[in-house]
């Protein structure tokens, strides 16, 4: 398949791997965080870690939109969907996210709530158009990549004069989350996790460009390499990070030049800023309240804002106390460090959000990589 196979080429991968092995100093160790769940998924699915030398390790970051959504917001969505005149439209991967009291959207649907899985925001607009008696709410989540489509849906609803379409907005911002991780006590002072550099987001960066990361490189002295989601992109980015570390540089580099520019998609940015404004603060699962890290609809578009229309006030909700999603999202713990992982928490019966989305660190490790812990156990036993 053209434009895909080239980026999954095994022989090129081996060539980059041997360069990484040659250039990574044997007396040093390199710990890089891939921020995005898309990278986490690619690393697990293609077995990228098998190609890396032991002293180059990846730490999974919080960049999975399903994973970072706090339980309270899922509770809100279930409450919304349970209203008799509401049709809740959502992307499929939110359906199984566990909410308070063991509930989920999937269960609410089975009990009769009108919840429809859609593939695009415009599908939700279409439902509102053909079913004018239903109050259609789109459960909008995601980073900067999915925000412009939500904005387009609002513009489409406005153009069509729809008064039965609204957005339950949960859009969040990548740079704010990266900053939060870098300022967290674990990274900054306690030294519980060491991060030598970041693989920067792929799709997010097509929208926001590479400029927003320059602050991290300068302020925190951390190299950032923006990379595509294909496994060769990841390998190349790791090599570029190793080189920056070796040379003592902390710069923003762009591996994903075929899609990302310094400025990003200016038109998309304009549309987003027309419709959305910053929230003072927003709760992230794992990170807690993060200032200026999410968007809400501007006053002018208040008639499309489900939070206003349905007077949603998110109540605080507790994760399962044994669930380590929070620490895993901050990179402090690995999936296998969680007592629930693989015992009671599997993709079939997820206890935490990281096990739900295919971009979640737990789901990726369970689905693609769980043989590794048995391999390493065997190796330990053999020694």
């Amino acid at each position, binding site marked *: 398949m053209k434009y*895909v196979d080239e980026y999954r080429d095994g022989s090129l991968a081996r060539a980059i791997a041997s360069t990484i092995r040659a250039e990574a100093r044997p007396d040093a160790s390199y710990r890089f965080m891939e921020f995005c769940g898309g990278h986490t998924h690619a690393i697990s699915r293609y077995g990228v870690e098998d190609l890396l030398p032991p002293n180059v390790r990846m730490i999974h970051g919080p960049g999975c939109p399903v994973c970072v959504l706090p339980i309270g917001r899922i509770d809100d969505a279930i409450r919304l969907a349970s209203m008799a005149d509401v049709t809740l439209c959502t992307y499929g991967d939110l359906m199984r996210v566990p909410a308070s009291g063991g509930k989920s959207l999937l269960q609410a649907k089975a009990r009769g709530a009108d919840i429809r899985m859609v593939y695009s925001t415009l599908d939700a607009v279409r439902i509102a158009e053909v079913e004018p008696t239903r109050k259609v709410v789109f459960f909008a989540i995601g980073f900067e990549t999915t925000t412009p489509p939500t904005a387009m849906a609002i513009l489409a609803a406005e153009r069509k004069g729809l008064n039965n379409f609204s957005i339950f907005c949960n859009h969040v911002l990548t740079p704010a989350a990266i900053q939060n991780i870098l300022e967290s006590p674990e990274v900054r002072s306690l030294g519980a996790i060491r991060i030598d550099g970041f693989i920067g987001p792929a799709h997010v960066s097509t929208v926001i460009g590479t400029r927003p990361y320059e602050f991290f490189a300068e302020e925190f002295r951390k190299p950032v390499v923006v990379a595509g989601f294909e496994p060769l992109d990841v390998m190349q980015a790791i090599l570029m990070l190793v080189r920056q570390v070796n040379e003592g540089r902390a710069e923003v580099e762009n591996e994903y030049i075929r899609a990302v520019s310094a400025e990003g998609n200016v038109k998309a940015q304009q549309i987003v800023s027309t419709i959305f404004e910053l929230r003072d603060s927003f709760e992230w699962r794992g990170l807690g309240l993060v200032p200026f890290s999410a968007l809400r609809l501007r006053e002018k578009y208040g008639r499309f804002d489900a939070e206003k229309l349905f007077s949603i006030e998110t109540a605080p909700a507790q994760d399962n106390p044994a669930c380590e999603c929070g620490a895993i999202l901050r990179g402090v713990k690995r999936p296998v460090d969680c007592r629930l992982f693989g015992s009671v928490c599997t*993709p079939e019966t997820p206890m935490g959000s990281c096990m739900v989305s295919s971009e979640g660190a737990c789901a990726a490790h369970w689905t693609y990589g769980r*043989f590794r812990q048995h391999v390493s156990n065997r190796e330990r036993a053999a020694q």
Partner: protein
Amino acid sequence: MNAPSRIVRRKLDLRNGCVDLSHGSGGRAMAQLIAEIFHPAFDNRWLRLGNDQAVFDSPPGRLAMTTDGYVISPLFFPGGDIGSLAVHGTVNDIAMSGARPLYLTASFILEEGFPLADLKRIADSMGAAARAANVTIVAGDTKVVERGKADGVFISTAGVGVVPPGLDLSGDNARAGDVVIVSGTMGDHGVAIMSCRENLRFDTDLVSDSAALHGLVDCVVGAAGQSLRTMRDPTRGGLAATLNEIAHQSGVGIRIVESAIPVRPEVAAACELLGLDPLHVANEGKLVAIVAADGAEAMLAAMRAHPQGAQAAIIGKVVEDEHHFVQMTTAFGGDRIVDWLSGEQLPRIC
């Protein structure tokens, strides 16, 4: 499916008519539906007798029996329809035991309002598929439910076949060192169905691989003989589910090589677009065979000589593994687990 012999009634309107509740009531209307749609489509001496059951001699040997339900949406799809699929699916489940499929039964749940023209098209297609597969639909049943209580038509089938003497295929037969062979490209059926789903619709020339595999099975059994361990058709859940089932049944691990697995470029492209793994996508005309290493090459050659196995390939081997993992060396060069599908990829694929 017994029809009284004297019916004084106007013929069914097969162009504009539709199923109503009387067609499932056990009265004349039902008898007429059976007489004008199902009997001509499935015609055979058992149905003509008009009894509530088919009575036939059982051939020597062990019998294989299976049952299956079909709820596919849409009912008509590129490469087939629910009728032909019902025959192929049931024939294949029997054939995977190495048995020669002989008789099927079919039960129809019809939704009030379903067009008779569509029902006739489905029944005719089912009859044609049965004749092509050399099986006879010897008994049937028809029920009608109110509008909204079903989706057009659901079919459930049962089938029996006879296993040749000396053959004992079972999912718990796989042993370390055995070889894994697939009969052709993976994922064609699932992607063909997705391409015509209302909310996904995309243009492709791809058609479902829905087909009866008893002929290919004959070839495989003939070539591999005693070295054949088990066969299975990778339907819902795809190749991944089938290999995991066999690994667990046999208490072994399976190692496969991604670059050896045949996948059509258009299937790979559609999966890429939709975020699916071709190894999780359903097939309806492919088989997976586990064979002892010394019989693998002969079997592969026999498969490739058959039109349904032209793209057959050795994709991996059975290994010892207490965790029963199915592991794959990716084309990229790393290793990963090939897990069962989590959750629902696409409802009503068959």
